[in-house]
């Protein structure tokens, strides 16, 4: 019953699952929400997989579909203002190797990013993944100039949020 298409998809997804986990990390703050979003992305990817022709890399296609899923799922949802609990099962185990100051700063940064709206989070994700502005603009359906302006605003927003907490 497991078709070739399914086999192929599952293998590709298993190899590329970190793309999805990383997006989940920016959009969710606890393990349950992380797993829910992950599952939703998998279902959306599977649904649109027949349309994936292979003219783009699987990873590129997967991150675009997953980002869109996250955006539409979290659209209009008010982001929590209070600091979210830090789920250690999700946090990078490597943090322990950093100085506690770095660890603290990273935690606050993630918290701040999670308070951004759905589109801003997508921009941050693509920025962290070192996508160029042409690709960011194309993925979000906005102009390149607009993407740059948005990115700068996000940076100032984050600076402001962290300054309020006295982190920076």
């Amino acid at each position, binding site marked *: 019953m497991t078709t070739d298409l399914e086999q192929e998809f599952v293998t590709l997804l298993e190899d590329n699952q970190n793309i999805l986990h990383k997006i989940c990390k920016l959009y969710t703050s606890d393990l349950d929400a992380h797993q829910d979003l992950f599952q939703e992305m998998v279902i959306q990817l599977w649904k649109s997989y027949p349309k994936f022709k292979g003219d783009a890399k699987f990873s590129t296609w997967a991150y675009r579909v997953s980002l869109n899923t996250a955006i539409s799922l979290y659209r209009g949802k008010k982001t929590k203002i209070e600091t979210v609990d830090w789920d250690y099962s999700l946090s990078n185990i490597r943090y322990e190797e950093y100085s506690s100051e770095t660890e603290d*700063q990273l935690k606050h940064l993630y918290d701040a990013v999670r308070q951004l709206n759905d589109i801003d989070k997508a921009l941050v994700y693509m920025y962290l993944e070192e996508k160029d502005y042409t690709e960011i603009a194309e993925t979000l359906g906005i102009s390149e100039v607009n993407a740059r302006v948005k990115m700068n605003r996000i940076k100032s927003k984050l600076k402001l949020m962290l300054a309020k907490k006295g982190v920076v």
Partner: protein
Amino acid sequence: MDELDFLKQHWQNDQEFPKVNKEEIRRMLHKSSSSIVKWIFLISVIELLIGIVLNSWFYFFDKEPHTDHFIFQIFSNSIDVIAYFFILYFIYTFFSSYKKIKNTKSTKELLSDILITRKTVHNYIRFNIYLIIVSVALATVKIFFERQTEIWSTGHIIMFLTFLIIVMFIVGWVCIAVVKLYYRLIYIRLVKKLDKNYEELIKLDEDEGREILVE
């Protein structure tokens, strides 16, 4: 340094996520059962709402004075109450199946949840058909007793009764056929999708068992 660039430095090393294996991914693909059951639940709620709206519409806009016999009023009201009670029970069952299927982690549980939902849908359809039969029967009795049969001759009564029963039988039969068609179009189609999912899940379970044996 820019905050985001600071984050970026650590971002690339951030690869330690709980690993999801092939079986888990495959199971996620078949989780669509939960969305099918969600539809079953939503449609049953919509049906209830339409029923309530129609009932209250008839109640408020029925200008004719109620000449029904006291017993008939008690009868039809208690049937209404029982019907709503059952419908609420079915909606609750659909909802809890949806919740269960959504949160199920193991294939075995998912299979049994699908079977339970399937059974509930069939019971729900059967219940609606029984409801039609009872309503038509009640209407038949009501129509008969509304006539001034005391002044009729026995032959007249027998002829009228035969005619009435035939007409009501046809009416009931048509109603049931329409309802069956409706359920075939909506519920049975959803149940078929559930069945397909069920078969694939069984296959998945067998494959898994085989893999464990091989290991």
